């Protein structure tokens, strides 16, 4: 867990290090992040893949470059970047570590995971295509946290332009912040269109988690460690698995497999992480 938090922190800092490399900033924004990070953030150095795809939906073009890039990342690692790189996932992980006086919620993600595909199809693709407005960005809680709030805090001019949608954004962010304290990664489970896209690639990605079904006793220890509320021994290729490797530390019958090269011949046992 500590190793993952460290990686997430480094990723969040690098993704938003605009002040450290102002000369490089304009050029880097032609490249998409492999994770969710608002490009309107005052310190962002790259482009948000979700905002970019939505922009292409509005201008009625297929974003081949971003789709290809996300496809390559997903086909190699699946949803791994959600667990190890995404700054908004990092914020949710930190929020969930806040102690809560009552028992925190345990929700079986599989029952509700279809919601993020509705968000992906409707709010992210169909409505922007029809209305020519980036409605997912308008409501995105990550955008509010990383761009809306910093810009309003930094600029008096922008503060004067606050409209009703801003307060809707704040309410959505507040709801996800509270939900993150009670439930691990609610945005990733039920709303993230990028996670939904990467999740599809979990089925064929080169990096996989495998269960030794001959030795698994279905004791359920791995369930308790899963931040996505999954049962790893039932479906390790689940579209909701973020490859965080938390379950590997609880059971010796789970292992992560990856090919030596992304295009190599076969997935083979690579390492055990405890």
């Amino acid at each position, binding site marked *: 867990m500590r190793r993952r938090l460290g990686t997430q922190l480094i990723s969040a800092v690098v993704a938003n290090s605009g002040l450290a490399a102002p000369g490089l900033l*304009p*050029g880097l*924004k*032609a*490249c*998409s992040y492999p994770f969710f990070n608002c*490009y*309107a953030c005052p310190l*962002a150095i*790259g*482009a*948000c893949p979700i*905002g*970019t795809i939505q*922009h*292409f939906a509005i*201008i009625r*073009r297929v*974003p*081949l*470059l*971003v*789709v*290809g*890039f*996300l*496809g*390559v990342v997903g*086909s*190699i690692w699946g949803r791994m970047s959600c667990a190890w790189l995404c700054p908004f996932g990092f914020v949710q992980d930190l929020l969930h570590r806040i102690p809560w006086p009552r028992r925190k919620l345990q929700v079986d993600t599989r029952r509700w995971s279809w919601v993020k595909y509705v968000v992906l199809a409707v709010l992210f693709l169909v409505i922007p295509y029809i209305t020519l*407005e*980036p409605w997912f*960005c*308008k409501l995105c809680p990550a*955008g*509010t946290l990383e*761009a*809306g709030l910093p*810009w*309003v805090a930094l600029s008096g001019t*922008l503060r004067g*332009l*606050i*409209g*009703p*949608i*801003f*307060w*809707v*954004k704040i309410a959505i962010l507040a709801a996800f912040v509270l939900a993150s304290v009670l439930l691990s990664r609610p945005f990733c489970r039920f709303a993230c269109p990028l996670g939904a896209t990467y999740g599809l*690639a979990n089925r*064929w990605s*080169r990096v996989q988690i495998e269960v030794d079904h001959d030795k698994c006793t279905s004791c359920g220890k791995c369930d308790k460690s899963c931040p996505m509320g999954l049962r790893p021994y039932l479906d390790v290729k689940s579209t909701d698995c973020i490859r965080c490797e938390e379950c590997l530390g609880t059971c010796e019958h789970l292992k992560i497999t990856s*090919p030596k090269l*992304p*295009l*190599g*011949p*076969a*997935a083979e046992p690579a390492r055990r992480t405890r």
Partner: protein
Amino acid sequence: MPTPERSSEQKRTSRWRGWPVLLFIGLALAGIFGHEAAEILLNATLLCLSCLGLGR
């Protein structure tokens, strides 16, 4: 000593599975040659006020 025959499971896992990566690399290259990087850069650089919930 005779070589043990490979099971169907082993044959399946050893099948080359790198084709999705190649497919998506092709898509990305098509995007690069279609000058999509300039469009991405322009979109990412301009600050969209309505996306921030600012303005009407």
